């Protein structure tokens, strides 16, 4: 009996050692980045590396906003990601409803087509969209980034929302139809309110995807004041210097809100992420 107990204790210790190691490896780069961002300049280049700075400095954070148009990057990213999310859910929800709950011929082909479009490599649509935006004079505008972002955001929204709609119990429509509801009323007054939490989940995921996009933003926003956060930070290094401190501070500035978002909404995000692949 006692032996069994001590085996469980050892097992538990090993288990928590694993969990701590797992979290440790995930968090370590952020920890390092954060420490770098508050170090005095001389300690960034210390050999051997100094893990804990001797004093706290905020200069790099000031640099981020004074030497670079970082506030503008944040606004750009926010505007583009918000509009993209809003539009793709707006267009996607009705399509998802049809795919999940209405019977029609060609459903399987539509689902396959949407899935295929979500797998399009960005690079394969880059040149035509570039030419198109150039002709329409939309390079370096918000619309010029929202349009290409819809190419991945819309299939993603449709796909995830379809799975959520499919999970709603069957028979809602029949009951509503017997009460004399029109299709539009069923959709807007019954289904949409039911799917609200899912829309929030999907919205979060689409928003994060749009916020993080790199290759379109790099190509279509060439004016420094129109850049988004991921590209803006990546272009901090110039030919003359590698401002590690500024880069670390900028990373902290974009990471902390994302971490808070993830901590608050982790259940919602996970519900969205796992619905596409995990079938019950």
């Amino acid at each position, binding site marked *: 009996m006692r032996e069994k107990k001590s085996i469980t204790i050892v097992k538990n210790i090993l288990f928590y050692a694993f969990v701590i190691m797992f979290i440790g490896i995930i968090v370590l780069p952020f920890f390092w980045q954060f420490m770098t961002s508050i170090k005095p300049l001389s300690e960034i280049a210390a050999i051997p590396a100094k893990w804990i700075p001797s004093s706290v400095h905020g200069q790099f954070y000031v640099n981020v906003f004074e030497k670079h148009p970082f506030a503008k990057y944040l606004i750009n990213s926010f505007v583009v990601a918000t509009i993209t999310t809003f539009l793709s859910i707006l267009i996607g929800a009705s399509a998802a409803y049809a795919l999940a709950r209405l019977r029609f011929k060609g459903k399987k082909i539509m689902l396959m087509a949407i899935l295929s479009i979500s797998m399009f490599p960005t690079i394969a649509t880059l*040149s035509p969209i570039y030419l198109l935006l150039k002709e329409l004079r939309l390079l370096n505008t918000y619309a010029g980034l929202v349009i290409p972002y819809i190419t991945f955001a819309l299939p993603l929204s449709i796909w995830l929302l379809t799975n959520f709609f499919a999970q709603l119990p069957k028979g809602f429509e029949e009951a509503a139809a017997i009460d004399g509801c029109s299709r539009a009323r069923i959709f807007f007054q019954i289904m949409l309110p039911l799917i609200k939490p899912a829309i929030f989940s999907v919205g979060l995921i689409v928003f994060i995807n749009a916020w993080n996009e790199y290759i379109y933003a790099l190509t279509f926003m060439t004016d420094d004041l129109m850049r988004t956060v991921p590209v803006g930070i990546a272009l901090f290094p110039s030919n003359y210097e590698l401002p590690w401190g500024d880069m670390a501070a900028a990373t902290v500035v974009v990471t902390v809100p994302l971490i808070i978002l993830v901590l608050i909404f982790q259940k919602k995000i996970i519900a969205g*992420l796992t619905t596409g692949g995990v079938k019950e």
Partner: protein
Amino acid sequence: MAGKKRGGTLEKTESRDAWIMMFPAIIVLLVIAVYPILRTVWLSLHEMVLTNPGSGYPFIGLKNYGAIVQDERAITAIVFTLKFTLATVSMELLLGFTAALIMNKAFKGKGLVRAAILIPWAIPTSVSAMMWKFIYNDQYGLFNDVLSRIGVIDKYQAWLSTADGSFMALVITDIWKTAPYMALLILAGLQMVPEELYEAAKIDGANIFQRFLYVTLPTVKTTVLVALLFRTLDAFRVFDLISVMTGGANGTESVSVYAYNHLMKFLDFGYGSAMAVMIFVVVFLISLLYMRALGDQITDL
């Protein structure tokens, strides 16, 4: 009676209503996804260097594709990309699966673990690439510091200045970003394996490996395949990570980076588009392969 009739009407218009509801999405996708792909294919059949409009952008058939086969740099990029895909996806599957199996139980701090898992996923790849680039720094990077403290290396290395070092650095960074995500998806799949199944298998005398093989695996197969499909595609299309971390130096040029250089740096839309079409075709083949393994499960609603 009247109600029943109305229900019948709604049924009759079901197919029409479905197409109406999908109409905006179909139009949008045709214009901004299908049309560009077709135009890329069309561009790939032309000699089209934007800096040389005097050429008149003539139609040259499949010549651009012929050029890829003879382009040593393109072949190197293809080989590198395949190596990168194989290395990252297999490691991510192995590590993700192991972590999910270990953590597939109720324990204190599970919420914290899940939140931690989501963080690398939520951070822009370009930002994590920069973070890791700093970690690999030859003089004051964390990587050298940790390795020399635990005695793995006795001299600081310039990891990003050799081919092997760069490859390893890219693979580690990619694993760091996506293995936790893989673990998350597999964990969600594992939670649907009914406990009774394990109990029954135990009573039948199945050992831990048999239980894994015959109880766990079949249940999570779909989840794992879907996760693998998307990971494989992402790895094959890799761009942000490489562009920020190595810029494609030291033999780390992926096909996307190479195609991008042709398109946006040399403005060679003909050849660049041919590369892009090739990437598209490979991605398509990879998905077909997985779809076959998945059968109808993914589009079954």
